[in-house]
């Protein structure tokens, strides 16, 4: 159903497109050999090229180009074998050359698409307009000194991919799902770490509103929103603002705005913060970027399985539900973990353990799947102990907690704690006899037809055996004794 916002005069539809800036994972910057690691001391990762010293020239970093191509392929997009770098000219203290090298007219990647997953289980396809490579600027720090601004050029020249969507997004939820899916694909590809807190992924949000069925109205751009939650809030806030403008008889002006998360409102940027004539022209220091189709094919062949394909395979090969499959492929590491547990075992049971006990343990211990206290191989061995009746599923939970706490191997825990399942029918019969004797009243009730009490007896017997009784044998023995 179409998402609408209710105005005073009726419903309004949101039209939204996103420009996501994704920092490319690469050791060196887009046009210089300087390092890109996050968190280094200010101005320690700056080459003469980055600082735009006289006579310095840019040289394209092949790995950054490869990453852009991989991303394009991962978005099912056209790879442009001929692309070009332009200069975007403007003056700012953290832009050393006075221009940013970007791809204005001829991006490296053309049209593609992303299938987004919505909360109700449905999917929608959002078009990708283009992806281009560009340099990041440095950072201006205005809060370090009462009258001066400080400049950190570590980020200057770092490669960004600007990924532009079509105006296909119709709700804050879809925008959130789009960024989440894009982030997931980038992380699978290893082309962007997707870390929004560190600024590796930032979004400019284009928003307009319209009456259902209308053509597009004027849009505004909300710049530099740095979390999925803020993107969703910014869209709603900006849409509500525009509705108010239209409904009070005004006209929305095309402009660039900023989102203030504290107040939940957008405000116009000061004119000095934009209002540029960027004077784009082809960068004469760089030749056009011409790609060898064989190289593109090689990169394509080296792409990992992406989340949608993986989820489909999980459903097909492991018989998982769409929901379970989607949860398990959310992160590449989780999917890998799951697959190594599921391999040669009951895949549904493996999924339950990973999504249930393991996720709970990770939550509790504050650790990620990559440094899970229980490695996949150990969880696999635990499942094997259940499968060969060494322990029951219930005991397995206990063993698992022990594994989380101590990191010990499940078999060792079972032995050390004497948790091996009891299959000795003599011991079971003895426990059954004790339980029946202690509950003579319940036995009488059961025999007079209260069948439901069978479960109670099972529980009592298991309790008497400290949970170690083989459930099938316990059932059998009870049935025999009660018949």
């Amino acid at each position, binding site marked *: 159903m179409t998402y609408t916002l209710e105005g005073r005069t009726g419903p309004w539809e949101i039209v939204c497109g996103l420009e996501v800036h994704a920092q490319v994972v690469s050791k060196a910057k887009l046009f210089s050999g300087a390092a890109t690691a996050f968190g280094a001391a200010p101005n320690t990762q700056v080459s*003469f090229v980055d600082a735009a010293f006289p*006579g310095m*020239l840019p*040289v394209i970093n092949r790995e950054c180009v490869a990453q852009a191509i991989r991303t394009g392929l991962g978005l099912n997009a056209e790879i442009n074998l001929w692309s070009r770098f332009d200069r975007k000219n403007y003056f700012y203290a953290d832009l050393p050359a006075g221009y940013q090298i970007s791809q204005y007219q001829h991006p490296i990647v053309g049209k593609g698409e992303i299938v987004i997953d919505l909360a109700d289980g449905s999917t929608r396809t959002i078009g990708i307009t283009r992806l281009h490579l560009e340099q990041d600027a440095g950072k201006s720090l205005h809060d370090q000194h009462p009258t001066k601004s400080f400049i950190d050029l570590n980020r200057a020249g770092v490669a960004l991919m600007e990924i532009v969507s079509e105006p296909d997004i119709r709700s804050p939820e879809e925008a959130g799902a789009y960024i989440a899916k894009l982030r997931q694909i980038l992380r699978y590809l290893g082309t962007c770490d997707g870390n929004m807190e560190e600024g590796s992924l930032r979004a400019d949000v284009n928003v307009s509103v319209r009456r259902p069925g209308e053509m597009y109205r004027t849009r505004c751009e909300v710049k530099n929103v740095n979390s999925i939650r803020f993107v969703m809030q910014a869209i709603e806030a900006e849409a509500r603002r525009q509705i108010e403008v239209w409904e009070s008889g005004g006209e929305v002006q095309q402009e660039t705005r900023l989102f203030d998360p504290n107040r939940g409102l957008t405000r116009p940027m000061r004119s000095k913060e934009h209002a540029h004539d960027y004077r784009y022209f082809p960068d004469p220091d760089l030749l056009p970027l011409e790609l060898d189709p064989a190289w593109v094919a090689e990169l394509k062949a080296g792409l990992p399985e992406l989340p949608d394909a993986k989820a489909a395979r999980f459903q097909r090969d492991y018989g998982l539900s769409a929901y379970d499959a989607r949860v398990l492929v959310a992160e590449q590491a989780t999917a890998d973990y799951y697959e190594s547990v599921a391999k040669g075992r009951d895949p549904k049971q493996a999924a339950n353990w990973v999504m249930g006990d393991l996720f709970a343990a990770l939550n509790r211990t504050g650790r990620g799947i990559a440094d899970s206290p229980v490695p996949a191989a150990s969880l696999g061995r635990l499942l094997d102990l259940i499968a060969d009746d060494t322990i029951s599923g219930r005991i397995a939970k206990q063993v698992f907690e022990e594994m989380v706490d101590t990191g010990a191997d499940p078999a060792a825990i079972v032995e050390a704690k004497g948790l091996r399942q009891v299959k000795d029918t003599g011991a079971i019969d003895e426990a059954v006899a004790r339980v029946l004797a202690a509950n003579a009243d319940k036995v009488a009730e059961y025999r007079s037809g209260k069948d439901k009490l069978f479960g109670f007896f099972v529980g009592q017997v298991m309790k008497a055996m400290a949970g170690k009784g083989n459930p099938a044998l316990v059932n059998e023995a009870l049935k025999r004794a009660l018949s």
Partner: protein
Amino acid sequence: MNAPTGLTLAEARAALAAKRISARELAEAHLAAIEKLNNLNAFITVTPERALADATAADARIARGEARPLEGIPLAIKDLFCTTGIRSTAASRILGTFIPPYESTVSARLWAAGAVCLGKTNLDEFAMGSSNTTSAFGNVVNPWRRRGDNRDLVPGGSSGGSAAAVAARLCLGATATDTGGSIRQPAAFTGTVGIKPTYGRCSRWGIVAFASSLDQAGPIARTVRDAAILLREMSGHDPKDSTSADVPVPDFEAAVGQGVKGLRIGVPKEYRLDGMAPEIEALWQQGIAWLKDAGATIHDISLPHTRYALPTYYIVAPAEASSNLARYDGVRYGLRVEEGGDLDDLYEATRGAGFGAEVRRRILIGTYVLSAGYYDAYYLKAQKVRALIQRDFDEAWRSVDAILTPATPSSAFAIGEKQDDPVTMYLNDVFTVPANLAGLPGISVPSGLDASGLPLGLQVLGRAFDEETVFRVAAAIEAAAGFDALPQLRAA
């Protein structure tokens, strides 16, 4: 033997090899000449200590039998090339005290070949000019004077300091750069040889950029052979410059003296300008006759878009310059003028004080032609015309091997002449600019004197990466011209 400063580079090389002279003697003689002719203002920075240290090291290598191709040869470097530890100013106030922590690829190659560094030569500010009068360090004086006229003349520009230094025997050769004629025009004005090689032949890394798609380094020397020797050492692929060509560097010197027999020389009718001085036309005809006598065939050709070259150049070059010079903002290095206020005030104060009038004019032109609403009419159109000019040459190369033209429309003019109107000044580049737009090699060879006794040059253009043919033709002209006039102001 001639005085050390009177030697050609090739003669000095032979004398050093034969140990008839030491590198130190050669360096000292040139340092003395620089000091004596200080009033030419050819140098912005002289590096005597460095020169003597280089020369001492060169003598040691020669003694060990380990001489490299330019061992002990004293050279001057245009102050547009960044040199480690030596102030590199681009003749601008904005870089007036800038000392680079790196060495340009071209100068590094020369030092690696054993050359001795005498210092940094004067130029038009940021290489923008044809008279060397826009330098923040004062104008350069041409060593030549008109017969019976004691007025100072301009040496041409922008490589006026390099050309004057070579002409006045202050060095055996010098580096220069050519964006629209900045090597060839001053060479023509000073009776020296200057070659702008093919775009991509020499690395631009470490050279202060003027217009990146046009800038190209090259040598100025006193003979064609000397220019060939220097160009070989300056050339070569550099992975640090994406526009540097990965092509082999031939032994250009070997081409000198191969003669022009059978070469087809084109004479483009569009280079015959209305109102061109008759002596320029006469010199051109003389050049044609020399080459015919030497066995070349002469062919009338047409380069139909020539008349658009100058306007095209004066859109493309300022456009690129306006962007290239944005980095001089007072934030990280160079001049900074703080008068309070905000960031924009810092920019305005710094750039207003740091750039001279001509540089400011070109930044404004460049900014204008790239602006929204004007881009298509100016910059984009200029790019299209540039492609047509390139196509003209491609056509020509189907029928000729080299092209002969005058180098300049006039001889050197007096300081102050032609300066009422920038467009008159820009006309100096009318014959040289097309080679930059097409990326082709071009050389200026001194070929005669005008009526007032000033040198005039002929220009030879060649196919991309065919400097060898250019050198062959130039050497034939040089031999036929027997140009042996000397400038009035000179050492030795």
